[in-house]
């Protein structure tokens, strides 16, 4: 029973890896198990979330089930 967090762009550097396996459950509880500095970055207001490939309008209320993939998408680079 595990889910995956995916870190894109500079969030990968902050996380030290491109993905991490986590226990299922509410996102708020999962984030509480991470390094606080990383959790703050993941919740930055310009970071978008995609659950199983679908963009979310907001992070509130997300609960990860088995095999879910939650991606953290910082602003794209442009230029």
């Amino acid at each position, binding site marked *: 029973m595990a889910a995956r967090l995916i870190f*894109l*762009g500079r969030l*990968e550097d902050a996380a030290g890896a491109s993905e991490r396996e986590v226990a299922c459950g509410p996102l708020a509880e999962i984030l509480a198990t991470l390094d606080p500095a990383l959790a703050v970055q993941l919740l930055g207001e310009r970071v978008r979330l*995609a659950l*199983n490939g679908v963009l979310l309008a907001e992070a509130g209320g997300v609960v990860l089930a088995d095999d879910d993939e939650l991606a953290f998408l910082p602003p*794209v*680079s*442009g*230029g």
Partner: protein
Amino acid sequence: MRDVRLLDLGFDPSLELERFTAGHPQAGGVVSFLGQVRQGEGVEALELRHYAPLTLPGMRALADAVLARWALDGLLIVHRIGVMVPRDPIVLVAAAARHRRDAFAAADFAMDHLKSESWFWKREKTSDGWRWIEPRDEDRRDLARW
């Protein structure tokens, strides 16, 4: 009509453009944009990362929006991912149309949206090491034109 590709290996832009043009003999004009890794500013390598579940579907949706907005005979979008070095092609957009103005506007619009809304993250390697590239205000201004 719509040819959208995400490539993790190099490509030959002139061959792509030749094939695209040959495939649209009824079009009077083809406008293309080729973006390449710049040489000569201390950048040794450039890496583009993407998020597979979103990036290619987003590019296809962009192509559909372009085709719905302008009268085109064909639209090509080819984008690299992975590590590139100076002079490597990064992106090729080409629009074939009966009327020149449609082809110019379509290619311009596609590039503005690819650059600022597509799911690519870019980092550059200089003698100081790798550094992630942040969004640019210029890209947001470009987008506001449409």
